[in-house]
């Protein structure tokens, strides 16, 4: 297999979700184009001539590629996986947090071995949560994973006007948080507790970002 032909054809399919149809078309093109290229070489063409002739013979390949793009049915299935995965991840994260809460909460009670029991509980919860995440990830066909990242790429949030605004708002936000943190800390001198501002600010910034993204989605 000629590497140049192979990489040319791969480049055509770079942005295409890896559905079965798309992959089959790619393989078919690759074997046929490779044979054509070899034939040109046999006819006495040099490598770059053979390459250009092969590429030229393909014609308008966009039309062909459009045929293997995801159809409505595929999109529906992708949506199904996306919902399922979001739910599973949420459950898993809740279990991690619950495990942590058990350990912290158990220290209130003064019972023998409660610490060990709570840690065991944490580990069990973490094991189940991890299993859920791994299962969710592995049972999602690669074509749908690709489709998700393909869709994301398509509406690259940060490069839209609203995304720019969100970026600006967040950078102002973080300056303000820093000022508040320093001000409170210097006024109260309670440095041991004022750090709590950061995780809270982090969660808030996530919320702000999501609000912007949701607005974007509704505007569309």
């Amino acid at each position, binding site marked *: *297999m000629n590497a140049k032909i192979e990489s040319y054809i791969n480049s055509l399919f770079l942005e295409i979700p890896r559905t079965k149809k798309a992959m*089959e*078309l790619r*393989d*078919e*093109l*690759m*074997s*046929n*184009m*490779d*044979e*054509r290229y070899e*034939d040109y070489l046999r006819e006495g063409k040099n490598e770059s001539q053979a390459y250009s002739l092969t590429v030229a*013979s*393909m*014609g*308008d*390949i966009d*039309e*062909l590629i459009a*045929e293997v793009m995801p159809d409505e049915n595929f999109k529906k299935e992708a949506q199904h996986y996306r919902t399922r995965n979001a739910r599973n991840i949420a459950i898993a994260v809740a279990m991690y947090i619950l495990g942590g809460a058990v350990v912290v909460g158990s220290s209130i009670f003064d019972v023998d071995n409660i610490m060990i029991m709570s840690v065991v509980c944490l580990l069990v919860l973490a094991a189940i949560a991890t299993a859920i995440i791994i299962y969710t990830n592995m049972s999602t066909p690669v074509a749908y994973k690709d489709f998700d990242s393909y869709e994301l790429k398509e509406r690259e949030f940060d490069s839209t006007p609203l995304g720019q605004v969100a970026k600006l708002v967040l950078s102002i936000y973080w300056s303000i948080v820093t000022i508040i943190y320093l001000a409170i800390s210097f006024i109260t001198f309670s440095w041991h507790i004022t750090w709590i501002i950061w995780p809270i600010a982090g969660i808030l910034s996530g919320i702000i970002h999501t609000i912007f993204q949701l607005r974007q989605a509704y505007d569309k």
Partner: protein
Amino acid sequence: MLNMSDMIRGYTDTIILAQLLTHDSYGYELNKNIHQATDGLLELKEATLYTTFRRLENGGYIKSYWGDEATGARRRYYSITETGRKLYEENCLDWQTVKKVIDHLLLGESKDER
């Protein structure tokens, strides 16, 4: 220059079916045969070729299967179905009519004979 692909547009399907009548074939070989049979006058663009394959396959006129090459990339072979053979025969009859009509209109042949 004679633009073959424009002239034969309506007959791409039938040309491909005709190629598959005797033996199964894959994209490049099929196109090469067309190229050679027409002394280089006609060669289908890859895009046309595969779009036609898909259309014929969706219509049930041809079937495809993957070859088991020991080396190199997999080849996708196509074979004609019974429905495909029927379509081929119908299109051949149509072509006879079209040929007569065009000859008649352009060269006025059959009128002279009368």
